[in-house]
């Protein structure tokens, strides 16, 4: 008998247990900061209030420019006033899925401080681990955020003039949210992976966040952009982080284009998964080559 027996290979059951531990730890870690949590979620709706008033004033002026009383017939970029408010509320949901605070900068700091070595030694896959902890953080967030979200949507139900979308559109909406989450994750993780080559990615990240804020549709519906700009922005994957799910829900994507659009989104997702994996393996090779 040898002194050190080999550990048994990790089976599916064992793996599931590891995953559940990662998810549970993430959950309780999040919930521990209770004050931040509840307050933060409600606060997030405050800018929506100003948005509503701002757009209300803009639509008033549009009506008055046309010499008409304000009603729902005035449209800006295909959106009337209730649509516009509904749009901003829906982008809140989309952002709740696709935003990844601290992901890229976290990877960058792990690379910089050499903590990344841990993943080379331990039998854990970095990307898998990050994805699981992110899922648990998001789950914890939804647990606490569902109530305030439901409350706000209930208050604002009047803005959803078209009512609830038909089932297949709603399924597409859910699909776009999930893919939005994954695109957000792999896109930011890829940016984080750049830190294997460039030590200071935080600047890059900030630029990315600025552009993403503007071009994802977080600030305004992308249909408001002048034709020439809009055609370029529509080719970028950023719209899946905010604009696209909201537009799907509000039926702003023509029925016959919906399936194609979803396929294009899936293609972008595949691209970012591959890019992220590829950069990680290249980065690790480069890192161990240095002897870090």
């Amino acid at each position, binding site marked *: 008998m040898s002194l050190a027996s080999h550990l048994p290979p990790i089976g599916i059951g064992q793996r599931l247990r590891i995953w559940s531990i990662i998810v*549970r730890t993430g959950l309780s870690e999040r*919930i*521990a900061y*209770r004050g931040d949590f*509840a307050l933060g979620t409600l606060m997030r709706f405050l800018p929506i209030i100003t948005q509503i008033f701002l757009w209300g004033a803009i639509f008033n002026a549009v009506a008055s420019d046309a010499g008409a009383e304000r009603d729902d017939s005035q449209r800006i970029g295909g959106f009337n006033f209730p649509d516009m408010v509904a749009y901003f509320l829906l982008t809140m949901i989309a952002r709740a899925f696709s935003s990844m605070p601290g992901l890229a900068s976290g990877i960058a700091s792990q690379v910089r401080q050499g903590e990344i070595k841990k993943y080379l030694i331990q039998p854990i896959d970095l990307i898998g681990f990050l994805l699981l902890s992110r899922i648990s953080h998001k789950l914890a967030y939804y647990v606490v955020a569902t109530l305030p979200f439901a409350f706000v949507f209930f208050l604002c139900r009047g803005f959803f003039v078209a009512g609830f979308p038909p089932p297949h559109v709603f399924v597409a909406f859910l699909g776009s949210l999930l893919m939005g989450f994954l695109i957000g994750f792999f896109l930011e993780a890829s940016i984080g992976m750049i830190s294997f080559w460039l030590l200071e990615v935080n600047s890059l990240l900030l630029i990315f966040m600025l552009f993403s804020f503007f071009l994802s549709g977080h600030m305004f519906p992308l249909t408001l952009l002048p034709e020439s700009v809009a055609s370029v922005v529509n080719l970028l994957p950023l719209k899946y982080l905010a604009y696209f799910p909201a537009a799907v829900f509000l039926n702003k994507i023509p029925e016959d284009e919906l399936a194609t659009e979803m396929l294009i989104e899936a293609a972008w997702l595949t691209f970012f998964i591959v890019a992220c994996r590829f950069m990680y393996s290249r980065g690790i090779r480069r890192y161990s080559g240095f002897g870090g």
Partner: protein
Amino acid sequence: MAIIDVQELTKSYRVYRKREGLMEGVRGLFHRDYTEVEAVRGINLRVEAGEFVAFLGPNGAGKTTTLKLLSGVINPTGGTATVMGFVPWQRQNEYRRRFALVMGQKNQLWWDLPAQESYRLHQQIYGVPADRFQKTLDELTDLLEVKDLLGQPVRELSLGERMKMELIAALLHSPEVLFLDEPTIGLDVIAQHNIQRFLRFYQEQRKITILLTSHYMKDVAALCKRVVIVAGGLVQYDGSLAGIIDKFSGKKIVTLQFADGDRPADLDRLGTLLDTHWPKVKIGITRADVPRVLAETLRDYAIEDVSVEDPPLEDVIADLFHQVS
């Protein structure tokens, strides 16, 4: 009149008890448990001008809290204290211009800037006239041999060099009272020695009053004539270093060296056998019994050499801390 006069000083904190696990965390959203922690339970202390006093005590004994109370950084729960006639936590500018606090575990110099820039800031804050500032800075950098390092960003300095810089920052306004909290923590022996040497010299020359907390007995032995032991938030001992042994240790350590291969087996009847390293044996013997036991031993065995010592101070103090906590 005593320069530092502390009476029945107390400080307690309310601490939120964090809970383990997910469900407990969820419950914590709605309800919190607090516990009162008494860091200082009633300290009495009088220090005369020009004394160099050491605060000893286990972790969490209340040493640092006491220093912070005396610096006015935190407010007490009860009791009174005056330093140079000021109540510290009123934080009067006249008081704050006349003392300094150095903490070995925290730094106040700007991390990314050369130390001299922080010093200039101190000069402005404390209102030190330019010529006097320059003279003091020259003297201190000379004494601590850091003149060449003034222009280097603090983050590039070694721990020992940083501590010297922190000391200079604290002494630029020539404080009359100096509080030192673990000034040599984490330093190597040489750096510790340098800091001690400087402190001793500076204190002797300037006759300032210093209160020092430290984990290193060497700091204390080298610097302070008076030792105050704090444990459990109370003063347990106040007196000379040597007095600690007289008060808290009833034992002496007798080392016997036996002549040629003699290895008696009944030595534990003399006292507590501490260490056997033939032909040398160390035995702990109650103080009063030492003359009698020694006489018997010399009569009964063939002894080549004898020495009688006090137990090491570290051990006595460790025992004492252990008893209190």
